[in-house]
Each structure stands twice: as C-alpha cells, then as structure tokens.
C-alpha cells in the first residue's frame, strides 16, 4: 500500500504557553519543536501497515525549512520518503494547507508514480486545532473520509475504521483510496532505532514551494486565558492530611 502521512511542526510546550510581546505567536525561543501525538500515531500506523503488506510511507509537511527536522524524526520511525512543502514561515490556514496537500496527491498521480492508496492525518493539529484539513483534502480529491479513528483493520475491499461515540463503538467501511484522520491511542508509537536515526539523517528530502493564499479566518491576536484558580490551599502533609481530606470530600458531597 502507498501511504502518505501529513504532519505539522509545532512548538513543544511544557508547563505553560508563552505568547510573544506582539501577541502574534507562541514564544519559541525556549522550546523545541515536535508534531502532534495524533500525527505520530498516524506515522506508526502507516509503518505497521507497510511492514505487513509492503508498499511505502511518505511523510509530508507544510512549513518553514526547519520543518525538515520533523520529517527526519518521522523517517527515523520507519517512513521511507519525505516531502517538504516549504513556506516562508507565515501561518497557513486550513483551506490553503488542504489545497497544497491535494496538489501533492494530484501531481503524484500525474507523474506516473503509484498513487496514494491511503492519506493519513492527525485528528487535529496541536496548535491551531482546526479539525478540518483532512476532510477538505478528501473533498478536493473526491475521496471518502473518516475522522477521529482509533482502530484500523484491513478488509477485502478496503479498510474498516472505528471510533467510539458516546460510549458506543461505531465503524466505517471505506473503499480505497481514502482519507483517514486518527487519534492518539490507535497504537503505541515505537521509539526510533539507532539505524533508523542514522538513515534519517542521510535521507533526501524533496521540496516544493506552494503558493500562500489569504483566507476568511484571520488571526487578530493570541492571549493566555485568565487564570481563574488561585494557589491551592494546602490541607496538610502526608497521611496527617487524611482527616482534612475526608472532611473536604464530605463537604463536596462525594462520599458514599
């Protein structure tokens, strides 16, 4: 199976997110970069499918030149090919991002390479959380789409994709080619192996430069939500705090 997986470079944030002085971006001077856990799981899922039935995994990102680092991280997890849709660092909206991604799939079909059978996305990007790029790509290419998927199985004609809705398991039978967006929990991503990392370091990364377009949703500014909670009231230390804790639970009405 030929599989493309789409990942987005985002800052790695720990205890809190810091916004730059102009309120336009997350301050990344102190942080590393990563991809969303959903996307890492998408790469793992693709690698497992190809290990089982052959084919290849191509990881694709749209981002600044430095996003090549994230592509190498994904190559180290077992992807075979990498493609960078290089930007000038400006933020791209979901409509423009989906258009650039759909172009990749079309060009691949035109160029005579085996077309993608499966396009895997994260359920949402970690930073902007638009919940939509995969679905927009599916419509642009006329493909079926399933989102929020936590289990993928091969069927005769294609794939069975499942997720949980209000405590009930629901599944979708998809013909191929298809678009699937997955959630963390679908698998447990492996750690990169040393040979994997060495291979990734040397691997070639294809680059194309798509055209940015403005779209209807425009960021005015970012801010940290007002902290509503104060510093906690300390009930005590160690087991000596247990009577106070029991009294509190009683007051909250949660004791049997």
């Amino acid at each position, binding site marked *: 199976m030929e599989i493309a997986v789409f990942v987005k470079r985002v800052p790695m*944030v720990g*205890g*809190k*997110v810091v916004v730059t002085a102009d309120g336009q971006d*997350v301050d990344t001077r102190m942080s590393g970069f990563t991809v969303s*856990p959903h996307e890492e799981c998408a790469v793992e899922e693709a690698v497992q499918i190809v290990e089982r039935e052959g084919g290849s995994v191509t990881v694709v990102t749209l981002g600044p030149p430095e996003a090549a680092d994230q592509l190498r991280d994904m190559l180290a997890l077992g992807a075979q090919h990498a493609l960078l849709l290089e930007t000038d660092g400006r933020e791209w909206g*979901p*409509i423009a991002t989906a258009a650039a991604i759909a172009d990749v799939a079309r060009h691949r079909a035109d160029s005579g390479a085996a077309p993608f059978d499966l396009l895997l996305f994260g359920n*949402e990007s*970690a930073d902007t*959380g*638009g*919940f*939509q790029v995969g*679905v*927009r790509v*599916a*419509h642009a290419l*006329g493909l*079926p*789409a399933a*989102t*929020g998927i*936590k289990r993928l199985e091969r069927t005769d004609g294609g794939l069975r994709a499942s997720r*949980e*809705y*209000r*405590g*009930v*398991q*629901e*599944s*979708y039978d*998809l013909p191929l080619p298809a678009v699937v967006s997955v959630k*963390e*929990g679908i698998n447990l991503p492996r750690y990169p192996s040393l040979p994997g990392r060495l291979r990734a370091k040397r691997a070639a990364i294809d680059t194309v430069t798509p055209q940015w377009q403005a779209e*209807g*949703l*425009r960021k*005015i500014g*970012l*801010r*940290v*939500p007002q902290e509503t*909670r104060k*510093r*906690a*009231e*300390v*009930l005590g230390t*160690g*087991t000596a*705090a*247990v009577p106070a*804790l*029991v009294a*509190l639970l009683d007051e*909250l009405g*949660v004791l*049997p």
Partner: protein
Amino acid sequence: MTVLCLIELGDGGAAADASLRALTLARALAGSGGGEVAAVLFAPADAAGPPAAELGAFGVRDVYAVQAGDGYAPAAWARGLAELAVSAAAAGVVAAATDRGSEVLAHLGAITGQPVAASCIAARWTSPGLCELVRHRWAGSLLEDAALEATLTLLTVASDAVPAEPAASPADAEVHSFCPDLADTDLVVRAAESAQRSGGVSLATARVVVGGGRGVGGPEGFEVLEELAGLLGGALGVSRVVTSQGWRPHRQQVGQTGTKISPELYLACGISGAIQHMAGCLSAKHIVAVNTDPDAPIIAHADYAVIGDLSQVIPALVEAIRAR
C-alpha cells in the same frame, strides 16, 4: 439572520448537553445579527418526536428534522445542512466541537468552500458576513481573537468552556421535516454501530475522577486508585505518561489528546499538571492535587493540595472512608 444549530441526540432522545451549550452560543450569535436560532436534528422518520419543548426553552422557534437516511453519515449530514441553510436563508451554522460536530462542519466547509472557525467560546457579527470571535488554540491553553469573513458563518463551539443557558423568554418550537437531495457519494461513509456499550462509569461524564500520573510508579499502583474511584462512584483517569508506558489503556487518558472531563471533583495524584493535561480538566469544579512536590505546576491549578507520597496518602484515605 438565522443561525442553524446542529443538535446531537443523547440518551433517550434528549438533546446532548454539548449541543445545548452550542445552542447558547448560536443564540447569542443570531442575536448579534438581529436574528433567531433554529435547531437541526437528524433522526429517522420513525423516531420519537424531537425534544421540541426542551429546545423551545433555549429560544428555538423552528426545529428542522432532516431526513438523511438511517444512521450517521457525515457527508450526508453536511449536505443536508448546506441545503437547509439555503432554503432557510441562514447566515450561519453552528455545532458543538464533538467528534461528530467537528467532522460535519469540516465537510460543510469543504462543500460550501467557506472557512470554519473551530472551538469558539464567543462569536458575534459586527456587520453582515463579518464575525468577531474568540476561539481555543492548544486545546484551550491559549485564546485566539479572530475575524471570520464568510458568506456563510461556520463555527464549532468548545462546549466544555461555554455554559448552557436557557433563553430569557422561551419560545414555542415547531417541528418541520426537511428532505435534502443527497448524492450517492454522500452516503459512502456511514457509521455502523455495535450494540454494546462499554461498561462502568464513563470518564467523560463521571462525577468524580481519581487521576494517576507518573508518580503512581507502575501498573500495580493503580489498584488502590481504582478502589478509591469505586468507593466514590467515580472513574479512573490518567496522564499521557501512564498510557505511553502502557500502564493503563489510552481510553483512560485525560487531556488534549485524551478525554475531556468535567467532574465535581478531580483528585489528581502524582500528576505534574502539564498544560496538555490541564486542557482536559478545564471544567472540573474542584481539583485536589496529591503530590510530593509543593512546587509542581498542578498546585497552581488546584483548589486544594496534599503534599505527600500518594502510595501512603491514598491507601490511608481508602481506609478512612471505609471506616466511616
């Protein structure tokens, strides 16, 4: 300017709580444009009547029951909404940012070629076609002020951050049936539901959640936390470290990439309080942290704290509750 709000049906055919929260924001948006909110639900023709009185209390005068075949088909639901928006001359469509709501609005954005603002907590029109809004980024750890310019305003609502408020003056809701023209391709992707429900108290709706993080130390340590959760009629929730170590299954993970919880009490044990974890418990009423580190970030988010080793505090707590 009419705003259509997608209503998902919960247990027993009542409107889902998340949808009532979305309806509250949709009503405010409609009001900012001098219009009204209408409810849209997808139900097979033979289903029990839609919860008209319940929706009327939220100011809904028109309820559209869309016939789009049996079961859930995201593209078909979006096609139904797109056609209804034209026929009802709607200026906006709103849904709760649930799995289904987010998915249907993404399809609707693609079908209509319009932008979608996801996870909004406030929105109003400043002029026709121009909407000023606040939305979540980083799962609510950051707020974005944004402008949305569109011929059809499409939003999802971060329902854990918006309360459900009935309208000041309730309306008499009238139900209309609507039959969209669906293409075969709209029905290719369709959910087949399995009958069985997962057992036990659901994490998302539990009144009490007992949380365990790396500080629990290993898979064995969760036994006593589960015992406590059982005693309090609650559910066990865990951090991402716990699921990525394989100590507990991912469906118990609380946070940005796990489940969002909104209990009366969240007792977080051995959890540091990383921003992605806290994103999953923004709407917990009370947070109590048990942590050996008085400077752990979670202390700044908690209402109460016990400074100590959870492997001593929790068994002692279980014993004290049993002794009552």
